[in-house]
């Protein structure tokens, strides 16, 4: 079957973005990516993906905007509270046995998940021995993560999530209201580093005891999922933990054998000792 003209243009646009800006979206799930690029096409008033490609190649102000369509930025503090409860109840006891800890939050968006873990670790008395690496490919998201300021109207949901996750303190202990937003305490960032890292292009950068990569793999096709999970496997220390999103699984993964289910319902896996 011949590709449609739009499909040809879609592939060429991804190729152009890769060559010009070094972002590789070729291995993303097509259905969702194409939908979002169609929205971008409309927003930029372009008739076709070819026209959009022309704009993105010749007007350097377009790509940063386009990136917000290419990546999905939906996140929350303590998103899926049961996941964080499972980390607290089942993973933390293992983490306590290490004198120093490294955690990798891959696809950290604007930092919501990193701050959630930082708060959880402080509540569990593990903060001082831990480094958290938050990585993402969206520079605007990383900048917001660094700033740690969130819209005030999201705070009730975050507070409720934190409580339901088994939080031992009050979320309000960690932020102050200013600039029309909730500014999270800088001390939470003392043990956190935010940096640019792509699961599609970059390599392992540290040995870690826990990888949390939630709601990122669903935007990848199977090969790219395999690449990403391969990075997690190589990055994790022996018997390290991997947490993924509520509707993600290692079921179809090339690396499924390297992990065993640890908290099944919350999609928390443990790397086998012999891998």
């Amino acid at each position, binding site marked *: 079957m011949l590709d449609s003209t739009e499909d040809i243009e879609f592939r060429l646009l991804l190729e152009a973005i890769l060559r010009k800006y070094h972002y590789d979206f070729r291995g993303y*799930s097509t*259905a969702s990516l194409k*939908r979002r690029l169609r929205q971008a096409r409309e927003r930029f008033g372009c008739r076709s993906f070819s026209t959009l490609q022309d704009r993105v190649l010749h007007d350097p102000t377009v790509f940063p905007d386009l990136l917000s369509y290419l990546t999905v930025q*939906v996140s929350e503090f303590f998103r899926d509270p049961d996941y964080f409860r499972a980390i607290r109840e089942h993973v933390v006891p293992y983490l306590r046995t290490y004198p120093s800890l490294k955690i990798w939050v891959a696809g950290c968006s604007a930092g919501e998940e990193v701050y959630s873990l930082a708060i959880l670790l402080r509540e569990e008395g593990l903060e001082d021995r831990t480094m958290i690496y938050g990585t993402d490919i969206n520079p605007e998201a990383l900048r917001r993560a660094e700033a740690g300021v969130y819209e005030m109207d999201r705070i009730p949901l975050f507070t409720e999530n934190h409580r339901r996750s088994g939080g031992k303190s009050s979320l309000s202990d960690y932020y102050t209201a200013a600039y029309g937003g909730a500014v999270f305490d800088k001390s939470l960032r003392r043990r956190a580093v935010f940096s640019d890292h792509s699961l599609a292009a970059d390599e392992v950068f540290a040995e870690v005891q826990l990888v949390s990569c939630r709601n990122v793999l669903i935007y990848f*096709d199977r090969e790219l999922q395999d690449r990403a999970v391969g990075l997690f496997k190589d990055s994790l220390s022996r018997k390290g933990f991997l947490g993924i999103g509520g*509707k993600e699984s290692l079921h179809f993964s090339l690396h499924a054998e390297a992990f065993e289910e640890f908290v099944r319902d919350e999609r928390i896996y443990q790397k086998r000792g012999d891998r």
Partner: protein
Amino acid sequence: MSGPRVAAVAVGASAGALESLSVILPELPEDYPLPVLVVVHLPPDRKSLMASLLRERCRIAVKEAEDKERIVGGMVYLAPPDYHLMVEEDRRLSLSSEEPVRYSRPSIDVLFETAAEAYGPGLVGIVLSGANSDGARGLRAICDAGGVGLVQSPDQALASAMPHAALLACPEAAAMSLGEIAKHLLGIVGPS
């Protein structure tokens, strides 16, 4: 049998979904050769009873869709609560937690539009009872791609807004009773 071979069925339902689906799906035999992809609007809590309720009533297998799973016949795939369900070109399923579309996640339009692209004329799209207008654009896309549109007769639906909107967007779609829709689904696969 005339027209292109049907390869899949996509169904959208909202208010009144369980009642409507409980009439249609139990009619399908265990070895029904087509996959049936279903989006139902549900409250966004993580554990939904819809799959197990339907499983009890159906002979055809019913499951919650998993990300990147290959679509096979003889299976009803339900979108999990709070995730969009999409069909990839290679006929695998994808889930996504991107923004709700016209207040809905899962969105019937998103399923229908992506399925229309993957299956073209080989798709039957069905809009059932519901109190909003989700599914109308999607059914338009299915018909534009050469597929067939069926709509639960608005005067027989618990909530008629969704069937009305679908028929308005897609006048060539056929309005049918639930019994007729079930019969149609059995008819398109013919005696085996």
